[in-house]
């Protein structure tokens, strides 16, 4: 377990680094007074090619085609988690383990082929 301690130290170090960077940027940036005129107009608006924005992104509904992708992703990603320990223990599991994994993969591939046939992987 003590091998993980340096990772924690590293994480804390990164966070401190980020905080220091952002605080430093706050100190060095031009004061608000200098840019007051600009701020009052459209400087603080989201970018809209220089025009005053009529609406904002959160006012709209975007068609998200990612719902199916996300579901498929979860299935495959969980599978990755199963494959990792299997690969590490491959020698010990031997042919039995290999066949078991093929069975597991075939079940998954059937679902994958079904999704493909139904057009879930087509973007257009």
């Amino acid at each position, binding site marked *: 377990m003590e091998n993980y*301690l340096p*990772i924690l130290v590293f994480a804390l*170090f990164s966070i401190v680094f*980020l905080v220091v960077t952002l605080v430093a940027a706050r100190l060095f940036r031009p004061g608000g007074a200098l840019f007051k005129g600009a701020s009052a107009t459209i400087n603080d*608006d*989201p970018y809209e090619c220089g025009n005053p924005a009529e609406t904002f*992104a959160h006012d709209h509904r975007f068609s998200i085609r990612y719902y199916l992708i*996300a579901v498929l992703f979860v299935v495959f990603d969980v599978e990755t988690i199963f494959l990792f320990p299997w690969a590490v223990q491959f020698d010990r599991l031997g042919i039995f383990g*290999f066949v078991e994994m*093929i069975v597991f993969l075939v079940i998954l591939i059937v679902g994958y082929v079904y999704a493909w046939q139904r057009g879930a992987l087509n973007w257009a």
Partner: protein
Amino acid sequence: MAMLESLRDLVGPAVFDHAVSPLIKIAVLIFVGILPLISYLVLAERKILGFMQVRLGPNRVGPWGLLQPVADIAKLLVKQDIIPSTAIRWAFIVAPCLVVAPAFVIFSVIPFGPAASQTGGSLDYFVTDVNVALLFVVAMATVGVYGIILGGWASNSKFSLLGGLRAAAQMVSYEIPQGFSLVIPLLMAGTMSLQGIVQAQFEQQRWFIFQGWGLGLVAFFIYFVAGVAETNRNPFDLPEAESELVAGFHTEYTGMRFALFFLGEYANMIVISAVAVTLFLGGWHQPFPNAGWAGFLDLQWIPVLTPPLGLVGILWFSTKLAAFLFVYIWFRGTFPRYRFDQLMELGWKWLIPLVLLTIFGTGVWKILQ
């Protein structure tokens, strides 16, 4: 060294070995290794792209443009700092940090050089080595995705939102072939510790890219393609496509927060390359360790490097890393951008079946051995 010894006595050996010593290493790694590397990678990219397009690239600040990174940092630091009035403030601020922090943390498990037991010295040339290192890398790399999606969402700009959505779909899709392709070196090595994988390549006398009937090469190819897509680099840079989305998920970002996104992207490039070097290219080992004619590659004839292995290892690791980073830049100078449906098709319909076949083939290869 004497100072370190007395510090060790002061805080006690346990605290020293697990907190102070890593902290020193981390500070050196970040401030001497990664941050300068990233700053000069940006310069190198602009220079190389310049040469590829028959231009000079940056050449005004310092000799050969070498002080350009310093000028860039100074400029970014004093830029006006805008948070759009309609943005979600806290998410807008947290997002770039979420990209940088995980990329940094991954460096803690990358084996840049040999362990103390291998050199006979007292210094490990890496921060730590855990037995599920590869899983840790994959997990941390996933966290970075949230930063980009959050940044795109929090900006409340149409361009950013589209960029963030694209990033979500793309990074999620390419994570699957990437995760799968890591299984192949795992199968070949039989361990998840990155230091262990490097050692396995040394013992098998073969880099994993050349191992197992060329299957290693296929796995490497898939890993690298997916890695380029994961880092949103050309030809997969749709989330930030300048010409259509005006920098995509970081359209609204200015000054230091923009710099952090930039930093995160380049740190991720280095992470992907470092993992590729570790898994497929023999890590910190020299090429042809046992071939007589290649004996000079151990670099022992350079006087500074005579304490065996340690610095030589780091040198070889950096060389391989640099080669990878060059390929990234080369890609950018060469390939046009994918269309989004082509991108998804490549990921889901080509890479996934290919990588599943490769895993199957590697299993057969393992059994026949």
